[in-house]
């Protein structure tokens, strides 16, 4: 077995174990929160917040790969930029579906135009546009560079999401701050497991999507070689 395959299987096992541990910690270790925080629905918090963090992580991966691609274009950097944007959309979708279900219990509505919700939606739309454009625009260098620039600029919104709730208020809870009231120790343990699980899940999904992008590149190269030969 190659070292790459061994590492991939190890990542799969670690991700599965951590997600199992997250479920256990959420439902059997963390106590129920007060009704104002959603009561039992607050259990969504343990993967909702880590999923948002995984979205930031994927966005940063896309930004770094895109920025390096602008300096020196390589298929690997393009693959990482593409995979980062795709994973950012995936984790953004998780946040945008889990959040409203929790909000319905905690706030009484599925959605409000709260600053953090609005800026998060904006970021998800930016990454969705990058993913869609990658599917529909041509394979030329100019298009790739344009999308790389979008990948860099799209990530600028991520710190705005993070700071929006402090700068502009809103309904969003602020439990993970130096000044906030914080969370109970058992809740903190479950949340930390959530962060580990989502980091591993993000790494696994990035790995899969990068491999897919590299296989697509290999197909393009082979098609060009056959096409060149046919023209000769």
């Amino acid at each position, binding site marked *: 077995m190659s070292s790459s395959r061994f590492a991939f299987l190890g990542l799969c096992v670690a991700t599965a174990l951590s997600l199992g541990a997250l479920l256990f910690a959420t439902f059997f270790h963390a106590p129920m929160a007060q009704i104002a925080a959603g009561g039992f629905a607050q259990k969504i918090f343990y993967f909702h917040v880590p999923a948002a963090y995984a979205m930031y992580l994927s966005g940063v991966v896309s930004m770094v790969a895109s920025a390096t691609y602008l300096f020196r274009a390589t298929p690997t950097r393009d693959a990482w930029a593409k995979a980062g944007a795709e994973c950012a959309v995936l984790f953004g979708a998780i946040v945008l579906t889990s959040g409203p279900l*929790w909000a319905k219990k905690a706030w009484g509505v599925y959605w409000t*135009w709260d600053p953090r919700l609005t800026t998060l939606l904006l970021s998800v739309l930016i990454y969705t546009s990058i993913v869609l454009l990658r599917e529909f625009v041509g394979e030329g260098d100019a298009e790739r560079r344009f999308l790389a620039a979008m990948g860099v600029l799209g990530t600028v919104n991520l710190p705005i999401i993070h700071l929006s709730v402090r700068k502009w208020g809103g*309904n969003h809870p602020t439990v993970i701050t130096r000044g906030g009231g914080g969370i109970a120790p058992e809740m903190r343990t479950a949340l930390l497991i959530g962060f580990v699980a989502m980091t591993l899940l993000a790494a696994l999904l990035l790995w*899969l999507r990068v491999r*897919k992008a590299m*296989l697509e590149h*290999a197909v393009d190269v082979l*098609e060009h070689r056959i096409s060149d030969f046919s023209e000769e």
Partner: protein
Amino acid sequence: MPNSLWSVLATPTATEVKAGDGAASDRTDQFVAVTGAESEQVSASAMVLGAYGLFWLIVFAMVAMTYRSQAKLLVRIADLEKRLPRDGVPS
């Protein structure tokens, strides 16, 4: 329609939330462990089940789609490699 389902689908009234009124001092700044749950109109279990269900659905859909695409690409690569000329002679 069952009451629990209706309560999930029902449009919220204006008094349920004051969107945009969230002054920093009014926001929840802590999660406190409590014993004994109060009665609730909307089923929290349904919300949690829905959220976790969607999470697993999204993740498994992504993994399944990626594996399917990779399998197709590997077949395509194998096919193209067979057609690739070797020593100037198409195979």
